[in-house]
């Protein structure tokens, strides 16, 4: 391709986003610069802290606002600024802890409540908590304790023991906002003039050509059209496709690797939509985990515990289902469930597409069936029909935001008390997320009763040879993968109380 006709020749070179009502315009941005580095180092806005630089502690939490799918409301979501690349802010509004009180020093209800409830001790995690509380304030008008815990799952506090912060999450709704600013109005307030102004600003930012920048010898593209995205991926077959960046961010902050070309999928029409089509959940690869999870839970309620325990809100807001799959980690929590539901992937290279069963996608440790220049376009999950029993469990040292030692997923269809179809899959048991074929075979045609389960549990020993690591020993993994199948069985026959996570809640 000649210089004048490359897929990025019509790109905008200036990154633009909104901060404190002003449009920030940046040129020559290093595409690997994180939002946190920009805040702390470039503009000395130090309220946002670095606690871990891997998206696991929440001290760096900021809120990114964009226009929701209805086009009429602003949507405010918490993200980890430490692993979010700066150019992903293009066309969005960034809110940091300094944005809330502003120059007038009128505290936001979340800030006021944190003081009144004694929610800060050392204060280092506090700005992050304030931002997660703010995101909750803007998305849920009367959260339950469990919803508060879920909203705070990505924020660690080592001082308070959380009780006063949970109190603050309840207390913040009681304050009179005392202002008609969008910031100060809770989520159930009608869209006011301020919200409309903010939306108009964002629309204006998004009106012209897509972003394509170069800085520090590295490139970043943010195409809008699927064809354009496909062209770019074809043109730069060794480029890194950036979705949520919740793993790629760590390449930069932890491994000091700097990808030269990033092609961002987050703004691509055709990758960011989600629908039910032909009995399948049809999910664009760049749909956030938050949105994908909401849809999956709506159709397969049994998976609720799995998904609310999957990472944390700031991670799920950035990360995508496509990214979780493409990443190919043996411990990604979505894969076992998707495997048992016989999910399939639509892969695309240039103008052509092909479909691959998820079960055939993983070849070896962090190796997938993706060819150079090819990307995941969509994920199709057949909805389990009538008579299917579906479940997925994760076991980890901590309930929230922890990587599973073992994650199991189960689907059986019973016909006249016998197993007519069986899908059993695990993460954490092998170098790839994998179905337990021997176990499935053992169950097929068997009566759905304890003896069959015991036999199937033994078969798992032939399916897997797990390793020992910091998450658990191989022996524990072996023991628990079978016991989770037993738990699944017990739940299907209506045994009382077999899960501590939900006990008493």
């Amino acid at each position, binding site marked *: 391709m000649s210089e004048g006709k490359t897929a990025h020749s019509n790109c905008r070179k200036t990154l633009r986003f909104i901060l404190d009502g002003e449009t920030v315009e940046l040129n020559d941005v290093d595409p690997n610069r994180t939002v946190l580095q920009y805040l702390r180092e470039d503009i*000395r806005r*130090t*309220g946002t*802290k670095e*606690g*871990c630089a*891997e998206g*696991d*502690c929440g*001290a760096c939490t900021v809120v990114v606002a964009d226009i929701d799918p209805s086009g009429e409301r602003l949507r405010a979501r918490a993200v980890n600024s430490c692993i979010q690349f700066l150019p992903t802010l293009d066309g969005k509004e960034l809110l940091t*802890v300094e944005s809330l*009180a502003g120059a007038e*020093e009128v*505290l936001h209800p*979340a*800030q006021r409540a*944190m*003081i009144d409830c*004694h929610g*800060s*001790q*050392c*204060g*280092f*995690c*506090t*700005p992050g908590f304030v931002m997660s509380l703010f995101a909750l304030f803007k998305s849920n008008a009367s959260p339950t*304790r469990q919803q508060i*815990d879920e909203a*705070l*799952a990505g924020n*660690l506090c*080592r*001082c*308070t*023991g*959380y009780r*006063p912060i949970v109190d603050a999450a309840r207390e913040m709704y009681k304050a009179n906002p005392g202002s008609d600013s969008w910031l100060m109005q809770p989520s159930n307030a009608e869209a006011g003039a301020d919200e409309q102004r903010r939306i108009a600003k964002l629309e204006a930012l998004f009106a012209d050509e897509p972003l394509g920048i170069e800085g520090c010898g590295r490139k970043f593209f943010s195409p809008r059209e699927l064809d354009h995205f496909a062209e770019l991926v074809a043109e730069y077959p060794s480029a890194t496709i950036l979705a949520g960046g919740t793993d790629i961010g760590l390449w930069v902050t*932890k491994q*000091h690797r700097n990808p030269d070309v990033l092609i961002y999928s987050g703004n691509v029409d055709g990758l960011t939509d989600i629908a039910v089509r032909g009995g399948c959940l049809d999910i664009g690869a760049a749909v956030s985990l938050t949105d994908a999870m909401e849809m999956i839970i709506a159709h397969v309620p049994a998976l609720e515990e799995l998904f609310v325990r999957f990472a944390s809100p700031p991670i799920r807001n950035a990360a995508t289902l496509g990214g979780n799959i493409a990443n190919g980690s043996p411990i990604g929590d979505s894969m076992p469930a998707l495997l048992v539901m016989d999910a399939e992937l639509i892969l695309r290279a240039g103008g052509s597409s092909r479909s691959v069963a998820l079960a055939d996608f993983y070849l070896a440790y962090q190796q997938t069936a993706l060819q150079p220049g090819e990307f995941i376009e969509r994920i199709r999950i057949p909805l389990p029909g009538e008579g299917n029993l579906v479940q997925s469990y994760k*076991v*980890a*040292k*901590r*309930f*929230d*935001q922890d990587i599973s*030692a073992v994650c199991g997923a189960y689907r059986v269809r019973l016909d006249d008390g016998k197993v007519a179809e069986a899908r059993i899959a695990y993460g954490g048991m092998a170098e790839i997320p994998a179905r337990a074929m021997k176990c499935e075979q053992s169950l097929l045609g068997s009566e759905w009763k304890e003896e069959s389960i015991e036999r199937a549990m033994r078969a798992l020993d032939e399916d897997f040879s797990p390793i020992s690591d*910091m998450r*658990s020993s191989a022996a*524990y993994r072996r*023991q*628990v993968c079978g016991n989770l199948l037993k738990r699944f069985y017990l739940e299907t026959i209506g*045994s009382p*109380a*077999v*899960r*501590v*996570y939900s006990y*008493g809640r």
Partner: protein
Amino acid sequence: MRSRARSAIAGAVGSPIPHDSSRLHVTGRAAFTDDLPEPRDLLHVAVGTSTKAHARIRSLDLSAVSAAPGVIAVMTANEIPGANNCGPVVDDDPILAAGLVEYVGQAVFSVAADTAERARKAARLARIDYEELTPVLGIREAIAARSFVLPTESLFRGDSKKAIADAAHRLKGSVELGGQDQFYLEGQIAMALPAEDGDLFVYSSTQHPGEVQHLVAEATGRQSKDVIVECRRMGGAFGGKESQPALIACIAALMTQKTGRACKLRLDRDVDMIMTGKRHDFVIDYEVGFDERGRIDGIDFMFASRCGMSADLSGAINDRTMFHCDNAYFLRNVTVVSHRCKTNTVSNTAFRGFGGPQGMFGIEVVIDDIARHLGLDPLQVRRENFYGKGERDTTPYQQKIEDNIINEIVDELVNTSGYLERRADIRKFNQQNPVLKRGIALTPVKFGISFTATHLNQAGALLHVYTDGTVHLNHGGTEMGQGLFTKVAQVVAEELQIDIDRIKITASDTSKVPNASATAASSGSDMNGKAAQIAAAKIRRRLTSFAADHFSVAEQEVVFDNNEIRAGGKTLSFAELAHLAWFARVPLSATGFYRTPKINYDRSTFSGRPFFYYAYGAAVSEVIIDTLTGEQRLLRADILHDCGDSLNPAIDMGQIEGGFIQGVGWLTSEELWWNAEGELKTHAPSTYKIPTSSDVPVDFRVSMLRSSPNREETIYRSKAVGEPPLMLSLSAFHAIRDAVASVSDYSKRPQLEAPATPESVLKAVIEQQSDE
């Protein structure tokens, strides 16, 4: 929060005012060390570390490091002009390894560059050739090899061997107890600035500015007078910033000395967790003899801890383990042996409780084992062994306990928590549920307050009153989130009868208060509060005397009350009086100095009165476990804790709740895991799991003991509260043990190792299910 305010002023002692920095915290304007404005030409420092647990460095090739983009300077051990040591007690802790590396992650060289990213990238480019030596990685391995950082100590009273032999019942046991990372949210950091004539000014996130000052002076070949260390606040510390910041500050200061430029060293989270010390993990062996009611006749304890590659504070920490292996129980015949094991792992250090929690963990396991053996409620055995009043009241180290309130606390808590009824309900539940099992336990806390090294129990404060009646307050304590600065300001406000917003709380600074002890051992408010009170009282006396003179009234007629001074018929504001006093040339600045009374202790015999007093508390925890996976969840916790007359009930409540949850993390989800090469693989929040909000029980009932002034004359009769509540978490561990024991219908002692991860719990469950 219920107010117990002593007077009408804003921020009076006893009022539950918010943390002084809370407004700055929630708006992001509280400046931590990394938030301070950066000086011109600031360099960022990174550390190159050892990849071997035990090796000699044959050669160190830093050419690629020096040549890396942005690099200004590199530094190795042989360039250190002064002492290559940052050990606080024993000189065995090199700043930069000199030829020998003794753990994976040990600092070998430092590199300064124009950005932190470039410095960190460059630090990875060193070529180090190692001659590997055999490492000692485990505690049992160290005992077998007689590998110790300090000599083995023992403490005994009576004849434990004979008492055990003569007892009606005997048990032997052994338990492993994991360590814990402090996981302060703000990582270790220091920024050193060059000052005139080679002097240094160091911002350090430290609980012990004085020690950083002394060690930086020694490392740079200077004297204490040449170095100033300042710390306004830390983003959490928990003991992890007692001795460890010296390493960070020394590396930064040495680079400043070398380059003549300001240098900042901020550790990345992974480097922080790999390079700096943690709570000691232990193996504990015991043999105990007891009667049919479970009363202990004699006990032998062996405590062995992983100290890591150097002594650090391990001597005092393991001493405290010995001092707390009685918890609240009278041990008539006792022998305690304490091994301080040298291992090729990071040197372990202070962490909230400072060895005490591990000692208490030991005796609580023994008590629980006795109860299981006899088929008794562990609570009954605990009560059977509690210290008495007027009898059975002397500790193994010969301190007579004069303030025992453990029975009162436990009686009240048993009632308010419904322990007995709930225990019966749980038994019923467990009979009906094959998979999930519930458990409940009550454990007591008695924790000794004072540094066991007597000389450290001293504190200083500095107070200035300006002519507008506002006050500049400084003391030797440091603020790490515990609210010390707020409490001390409340003391001064109370003493001078002025609103607290008239008082400026200022950064800890070695040039204002010299030779201050670390803010540690829960002693911050006790000691700095007293020192500040003494300073304020001096000024008040001078003002009283001046006012009496000036208004020609008797001193008794001069009254300080609610921002006013009444002298006879005259009333004037504190500001007016301050101005008048200045005009009359009355000195308006004072220092205060406090030394803790009554304590004395002979380390050679492990006897005396190491502690001024004890803090007490008790907790009831209820858990549920899954016998298929070993997962567990804390369902309810009831706490009753003794803060004496609290200086600030809101802040003290924060210490109680926060300490409890931190302890629960230690005993459940927080697991440190090393591989066979001695590499710590749990070195970030992705792999090391401290509690989150959902781990806090939905039903969490925390109370402070009412009407319980400290019997000793402490600052407004309050009690120290920093460390003691952490050990309330032992109730959660024992509730899990109780649930595990249900698997054998309470017929077997549970073999549960801490932390009680799902794997640890499942292992204990399976052991309960076996026939042996």
